[in-house]
């Protein structure tokens, strides 16, 4: 089967894994409140959001996602 499909499958699986581990890491960070912890929380959250974007894109759920 052609390359694009493989890529999408890999991306999807990878995104799920990364997303889960990002959330776990986020939960570990949650109680801490140092400046670095707060920034880390923000950035980890955004990274998880990035994974969601990847999932939506590979699922073709974004208006112009597919291409």
């Amino acid at each position: 089967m052609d390359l694009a499909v493989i890529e999408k499958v890999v991306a999807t699986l990878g995104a799920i894994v990364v997303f889960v581990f990002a959330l776990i890491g986020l939960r570990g960070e949650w109680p801490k409140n140092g400046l670095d912890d707060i920034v880390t929380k923000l950035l980890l959250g955004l990274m998880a959001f990035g994974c969601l974007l990847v999932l939506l894109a590979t699922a073709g759920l974004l208006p112009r996602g597919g291409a």
Partner: protein
Amino acid sequence: MSVSIAKQGYSLGHGHDEDAHEQVIYQETRDMRLLGFVLFLCSDVVLFSAFIFAYIYLRTTVAPSWPPIVGGHQLPRLDTAFAAVNSVVLFGSGVTMHYALENFKHANLRRYNVFMGFTILLGAMFLGGQGYEYAHAQIGGWSGNIFGASFFTLTGMHGFHVFAGVIYLLVLWYQTQRGVYTQERYFGLTAGTLYWHFVDVIWVGLFFLFYLW
């Protein structure tokens, strides 16, 4: 930095209980350096924002159509599928970096080394992927049109940050092998982690703007 600390009046072997004293000194210095580093990241965000603004402005208010038409033909859109894989690689490296730091804090260095290795590996993979992407992006080159200009300039700047980040992480790794950092004193690693996360998050924005929008 050390000189400044001393000039601020921090002195070793001066107070009665030296260790507590020294720990206080470290804490204060660390807080200041951390704040400074975060501020630096903020101003770096603004640098990217400037170019992102340029891209959005050119795309929405200047270009008659997007992707722009060059020599009578409309340029193709970029290939999302491959970029998605590449993004996952970079995000993954961000997460592994996080766990590397956590493990270092809890002093299980074996897993720290594994995670750190993965982080650097994935970072390098991402750079390779970018190289592949550059070779295959059919958007008329860097200086051909506004699409190429904004794409290659922004991702180029980001790629440069990633490259610098990989070097930075290698240095940090070497330093940990040399025992520069302890479980109480690891500001260098904190800064490295924050920088690496920052690079990943910038990519979230770029991925959306260039591949999904």
